[in-house]
């Protein structure tokens, strides 16, 4: 469906001069620096997948999305979206994709939502039948009819995201690009958006590529995850796999009868101590929970204990750190 092969994007940026009389010198400046925003990445996404695309700011996420949607032309490499090269056939590609930018809306700001949708219907040449059908679905799953008539500028963020999703899906695109769709949205609204996306993916086999900082999105929606940093994909695999390869870490949370002074437990790291609880992190391949519990329990009475699995966020952070070590970055 989406094929990227050795995709690279370089930018030339004017080097600003500093220091003495920098103001005047900059008036005559012509120095350029080349920055590789996307560095030789390759991946394949099949129809119907929901893929999470995460990475720190400036890692190359939005640049990749811009290339996939046909906004930017790659410096080199090959890119194909459902058989079409986005930047070569911009308009044809546009018909098969839907895009939601988290920070900006594609709707007209001062007029009711429904007006924007009607105009989009004409722009995308959606048939009356399809239009009606989709509206009904949106009413059903997103409760769009509650704020159809409201101008976009008066909508809450959650409502606006719903409207933008509807707008992006109005023409039944095969692929949906979501750029930070849940940013700033409250928990309840987030859930609703995620449910909707899952539903659309299930029913219509819409392929979804989702960039986000929110690990909840990843855990709840994505079967697959790509981590990008410094323009390179440093991890590409299922969420499950990440747990397996990096998820050997566990945390033993023990609640004691009384508040105790901190004490060490062999083959563990005491990461937190609060009141009567202590958190011990260990590698389950090196130490078995039962041994640890026996060790602790034989010294102090235990009221309660849990073994926590690492959060995706933590695992991702580990991957970053490891990558940083590899690259030699602090």
């Amino acid at each position, binding site marked *: 469906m989406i094929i990227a092969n050795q995709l690279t994007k370089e930018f030339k940026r004017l080097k600003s001069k500093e220091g003495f009389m920098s103001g005047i010198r900059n008036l005559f400046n012509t120095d350029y620096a080349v920055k590789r925003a996307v560095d030789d990445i390759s991946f394949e996404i099949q129809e119907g997948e929901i893929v999470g695309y995460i990475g720190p700011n400036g890692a190359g996420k939005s640049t990749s999305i811009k290339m996939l949607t046909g906004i930017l032309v790659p410096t080199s490499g090959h890119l194909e979206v459902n058989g079409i090269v986005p930047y070569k056939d911009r308009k044809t590609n546009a018909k098969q994709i839907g895009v939601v930018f988290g920070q900006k809306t594609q709707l007209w700001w001062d*007029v009711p939502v429904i007006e924007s949708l009607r105009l989009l219907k004409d722009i995308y040449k959606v048939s009356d039948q399809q239009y009606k059908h989709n509206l009904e679905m949106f009413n059903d799953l997103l409760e769009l009819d509650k704020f159809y008539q409201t*101008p976009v500028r008066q909508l809450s963020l959650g409502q606006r995201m719903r409207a933008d999703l509807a707008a992006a899906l109005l023409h039944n695109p095969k692929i949906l690009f979501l750029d930070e769709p849940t940013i700033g949205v409250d928990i309840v609204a987030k859930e609703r958006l995620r449910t909707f996306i899952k539903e659309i993916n299930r029913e219509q086999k819409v392929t979804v590529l989702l960039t986000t900082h929110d690990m909840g999105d990843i855990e709840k929606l994505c079967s697959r995850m790509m981590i990008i940093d410094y323009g390179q994909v440093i991890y590409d695999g299922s969420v499950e796999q990440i747990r397996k390869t990096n998820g050997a870490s566990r945390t033993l949370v023990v609640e004691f009868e009384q508040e105790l002074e901190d004490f060490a437990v062999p083959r563990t790291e005491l990461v937190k101590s609060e009141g009567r609880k202590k958190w011990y992190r260990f590698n389950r391949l090196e130490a078995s929970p039962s041994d640890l519990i026996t060790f602790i329990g034989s010294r102090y009475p235990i009221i309660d204990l849990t073994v926590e699995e690492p959060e995706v966020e933590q695992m991702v952070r580990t991957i970053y750190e490891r990558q940083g070590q590899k690259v030699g970055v602090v």
Partner: protein
Amino acid sequence: MADWPGAKSIRGSSYKEGKVIETVSIYLKLIKISMKSRMQYRADFFTGIISVIILNAVNLTLIGILVNRFAHLNTWNLWEMVFLYSLWVMGHSIYSLLFWHFNTLEDYLVRGTFDQFLIRPIGVLVQFLGREIQYMGIGDVIVGATGLVLSYSKLGLNWGMFEFSWLIAAILSGAIIELALAWLIACLSFWTGRSVTAYFVMMRLNLMVQQYPVDIFGTWFRVLVTGLIPVAFINYYPTLLLLGKTEQAGGWGWLGMMSPVVALLLLALAMLVWRIGIKRYSSTGS
């Protein structure tokens, strides 16, 4: 669809026609929504129009004061000056109404609205064109029309069909020249990220040139505004023709005839630069 050799050419002409109609219809729909958007700001609507009327009134008063003191400006009397000014304002009003937002292209680039255009299955230009409409152009229409009507009667002109059609042509050419120049300047945003200052500079200089007949100034000036940045074709040369003052400019007097040609050439240039600009935006981002 059959793809035999004949098909393309037959499909060709009506296909193109169909495309044009389609584009125009989309444009009208976009404009409709822009009009609705504008109408949300009622107060702004009226203040904008009145403000523009005041602006033009001030300019005309200044000219009036000069003519009052000096009886004429290089043989140009008051009503001829008013005619000169009004001719410009009429063309300018079209520009103000439909194309004024071109100079805000840099905002579109920075805010990501331009990216939205690229994601849709229709032309970028149509979307940009239809994005905004400025009611203040109505103020220009009022002033321009009044000025033309008044000066026509005060100068005792007596025109036939030919002159009137030429007037329309001049007004349209003027609008197109302004559009093309503003468009070219706006395209600067693709390279330098900003065009606002350049735009206002051009507007300020243009005002100077449109208010005063070019024959007042020296040769260098005339060459500049005729050959290099052809704003003199907006109102000066057409006015020479329409008022029968072609001797003012000596051999250059009949250049008014060229206004439509200049307009179309500039327009073509602007469209070319626009296309190149978009290509550049697609390869260097913002």
